[in-house]
């Protein structure tokens, strides 16, 4: 791999407390170094007058799953969808993410029986490093462990499963909601046991959090709260946060990296839970508890968005509001439900404006180290909306301009109208680079331009010394729309308009380190369970994947 010297740029590297100083970045053999051993074969890029930042990290997206394929299917006959999303193909996704400075992406929700589809797609997703979260919220194999105090046993099994399927972390998502077989049944409470299971959804959130800490996974439990985008979610969210807090868990990642996560709980798309527009309680909890973090879920108001979800409440709401787009519903191997459809956000719909404002409100009210930029891609926005979305965060003017044609009662009532706070450029870098990397447990290598980090960076045509981005947000946007260079492992993957998709990233995975228990007997019980009740043997979860493209974190 060539040596790369990015010289004379104004570097922003929050992990290393560098905020705009002129600094050279040296990359050798894919890693950031402080000197080159030999001076031959060095590719130089002069970033004089430009800004150099770590490459961005996407913590919550839907890019490689069967659900996404169903969304593509429905969208394939729709001209709006085609015009905007280009079929949502793997190449289109890679191109758009790279164009926006990303080198790492997480697929947020995969059922164990569908992981092979995800791996197959991730292998064909060019350039980007990637990982996926395993949805273990409806795992009948863990019935006893969800019911009783059997953390070590549950952890051993999950560690084995994570290793088989090469997942990175655990997703908690509407536990056992799929077990209300009538599609119309919508669960009212997270603290009630189901007809078929002798534990509550809340128990599952608790147990999954405990499993994660026991295993020492690099990322915390990644949670979706039931009933998002409906009036159910506010209460559900608060109860869940209070419950998780009461567990007294400490973050316990067991990977070797110097920079570890501080959170024990990650909330997905925080914008979607307070549909009354009042985020004050959520903000209070987050400000008082540094061990919670969340990705924000910005709304982009695209012409049309796919909706990939496993949440019964939202789908029921859409059906009842006569969503004209068709729904592909599937129950998958008693591991959960999946739904795919299309929908339109509108600035004329109060609820949609509220969600839009929620994301910004939360971004302005909680320390950026507890937040991550996300758009619940492709559900809430397109990644190509990033420059515009970012402009709302760093400029009050940009925000106001955007809001002018929003629904009138929203404009009258929402607190964001009178909020003139803005984020700094450094905050933006934290939100999009350092914080997601840290939350994922890979802060030592991603979102970081310090020694030993992966050589992933962006060069922006922006000089913050002579641009006040809160006023001149167009310059800021333009720099982000036209990122001059995107570098991955020291190689140039974007050079102005040219994007090079001819390289492969790695699949990051983790199975953690369970405490020594009788692994064999625990797994034997699970094997028997699968033999009795499943269509395939437990061993069939094993993914045969070329070791060259794997990167184990712990």
């Amino acid at each position, binding site marked *: 791999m060539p040596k790369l010297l990015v010289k004379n740029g104004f570097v922003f590297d929050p992990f290393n407390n560098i905020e705009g100083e002129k600094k050279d970045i040296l990359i050798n053999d894919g890693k950031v170094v402080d000197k080159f051993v030999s001076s031959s074969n060095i590719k130089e890029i002069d970033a004089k007058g430009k800004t150099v930042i770590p490459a961005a990290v996407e913590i919550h997206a839907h890019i*490689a799953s*069967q659900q*996404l*394929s169903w969304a*593509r*299917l*429905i*969208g*394939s*006959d729709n001209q709006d969808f*085609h015009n905007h*999303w*280009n*079929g*949502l*193909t*793997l*190449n*289109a996704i890679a191109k758009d993410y790279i164009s926006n400075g990303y080198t790492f992406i997480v697929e947020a929700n995969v059922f164990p*029986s*569908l992981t*092979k*589809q995800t791996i*197959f*797609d991730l292998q*064909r997703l060019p350039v980007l490093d990637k990982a996926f979260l395993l949805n273990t919220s409806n795992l*009948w194999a863990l019935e006893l462990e969800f019911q009783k105090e059997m953390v070590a046993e549950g952890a051993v099994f999950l560690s084995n499963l994570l290793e088989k399927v090469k997942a990175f972390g655990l997703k908690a998502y509407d536990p056992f909601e799929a077990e209300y*077989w*009538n*599609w*119309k049944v919508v669960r009212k409470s997270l603290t009630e046991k189901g007809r*078929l299971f002798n534990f509550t959804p809340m128990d599952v959130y608790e147990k999954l959090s405990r499993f994660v800490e026991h295993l020492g996974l690099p990322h915390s439990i990644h949670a979706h709260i039931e009933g998002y985008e409906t009036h159910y979610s506010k209460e559900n969210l608060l109860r869940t946060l209070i419950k998780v807090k009461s567990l007294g868990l400490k973050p316990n990642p067991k990977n070797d990296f110097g920079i570890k996560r501080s959170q024990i709980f990650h909330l997905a798309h925080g914008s979607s839970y307070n549909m009354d527009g009042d985020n004050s309680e959520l903000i209070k909890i987050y400000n008082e508890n540094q061990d919670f973090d969340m990705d924000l879920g910005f709304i982009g108001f695209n012409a049309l968005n796919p909706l990939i979800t496993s949440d019964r409440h939202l789908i029921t709401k859409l059906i009842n509001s006569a969503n004209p787009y*068709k*729904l*592909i*519903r*599937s*129950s*998958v*191997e*008693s591991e959960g439900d999946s739904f795919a*459809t299309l929908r339109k956000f509108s600035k004329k719909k109060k609820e949609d404006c509220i969600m839009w404002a929620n994301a910004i409100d939360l971004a302005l009210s909680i320390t950026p180290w507890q937040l991550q930029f996300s758009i619940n891609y492709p559900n809430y926005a397109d990644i190509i909306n990033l420059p515009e979305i970012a402009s709302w965060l760093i400029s009050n003017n940009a925000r106001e301009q955007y809001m002018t044609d929003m629904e009138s009662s929203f404009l009258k009532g929402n607190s964001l109208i009178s909020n003139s706070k803005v984020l700094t450029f450094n905050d933006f870098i934290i939100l999009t680079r350092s914080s997601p990397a840290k939350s994922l447990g890979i802060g030592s290598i991603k979102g970081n331009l310090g020694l030993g980090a992966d050589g992933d960076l962006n060069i922006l045509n922006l000089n913050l010394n002579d641009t006040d981005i809160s006023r001149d947000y167009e310059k800021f946007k333009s720099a982000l729309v036209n990122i001059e260079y995107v570098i991955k492992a020291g190689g140039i993957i974007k050079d102005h308009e040219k994007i090079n998709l001819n390289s492969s990233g790695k699949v990051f995975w983790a199975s953690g380190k369970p405490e020594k228990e009788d692994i064999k007997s625990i797994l034997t019980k699970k094997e028997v369970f699968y033999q*009795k*009740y*499943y*269509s*395939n*043997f437990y*061993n*069939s979860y*094993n*993914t*045969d994947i070329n070791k060259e493209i794997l990167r184990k974190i712990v």
Partner: protein
Amino acid sequence: MKRFTCSGCSLLCDDIIVQSDGLFISEVMGACLKGKERFDQVSAKNRITSPLIRKDGELKEVSWDEATKKAIEIIKNSSIPLLYGFSNVSCEAQDVGIKLAQKINGFIDSNASICQGKILNKAKSLGINLTTITEIINKGDLIILWGANPAETVPRLLNKVLFSRGKFRMTGREIKTLVIVDPIKTASFRVMGVRDLPLIIEPNKDIDLIRMLKEECCSVDSIPSQGVAGIDKNDLKRLLLHLTGAENGVIILGQGVIQPHPDYNLVEELLELLQMINERQEKGRISLLLMGGHFNMAGFDHVALSSFGVSGKLEFKHNQLIKTDDTLVSKIEKENFDSSIIVGTDPISHLPHSLSSKIAKKPLILIDNHHTATSHIAEVVLPTAITGIESGGLAYRLDQVPIELNKIINPSNNLPSDEELLNQLYRLINQGGSE
């Protein structure tokens, strides 16, 4: 002795015990008739283990060099090649096949387009509820075979879903009701018990049954006393009660329901009926299972969707996917192609004569394991390793669940896998800098 997954049909059973030393398979246990035949294909009498070219009307064995050269020549002389098949190859091979089509300005489609793909196509505009095998094992209490005869196409399907004991169906067969809707009393009827419901429907009258169910949905009061479509009133009543009262029902759809009709679309009306039932059902749900038989029919759609955003009928010009009104059938009918690359299928046998005769007219490259009617027509035959036995890869079960196939033994005569062969053709075309 090890357990392997069978590639004999789309059920992809993973409980086949195979005794092998990596070179030969000495014993196969647990496979059904179709699975056994699949394993037997390794040493089949009419297996093709060397490339063939038609010379003076006869297929002659030639070297790989000569055969691939001939294939490339046909492709280069072709400006609108047709690529078809791909339901009996791995996803990796499907992926390369699509890339090859892109490279050579081809039109590519899979067997799904004339089979289960038609139902997924309708799902775009009508939505669909799908389910998977484990769901039916554990929760199914109603299994309806509609125009589907698994006993002769996916032999162990009923074993798995009807006769199994599930987590919530511990009494297994006793609590699962089987309904079969078919004009012919097929072999699948043989498993019927006293509480099951055989519905021998009059040929071509499925539409009447569906429409009656739509009208009477959830109310048994106004079923016509003379019955509908040759099914008597009592049976109709029982059917309706099953549909509306099932906790977790599945309708398994076969070729019988995708037959076209000039005045209506049966699949559309069926999907609408299911929508209606799910909306009005208070107890449970009814889902669908698409019963295509080829071991990786479901895979092509997923590969095509993730690569190009469409599930089939991909047409390429100058390396770009272009909008096309053509389907596989219209392409062949209008003779809107000048050569074909047939992969893992036998269109000369399974397409109507009016189409197969048109395919036969143009140069045909066949990639397959053994002789078929199509090999009797082909200009060039490029043999490959048998997927799931001599080469591995990803495949999709009929319920859309991805399953891995393994290599058990080395391929006869060092044959390449479909993926390797298609890759080789791709590379040779690329080198030649052709259009």
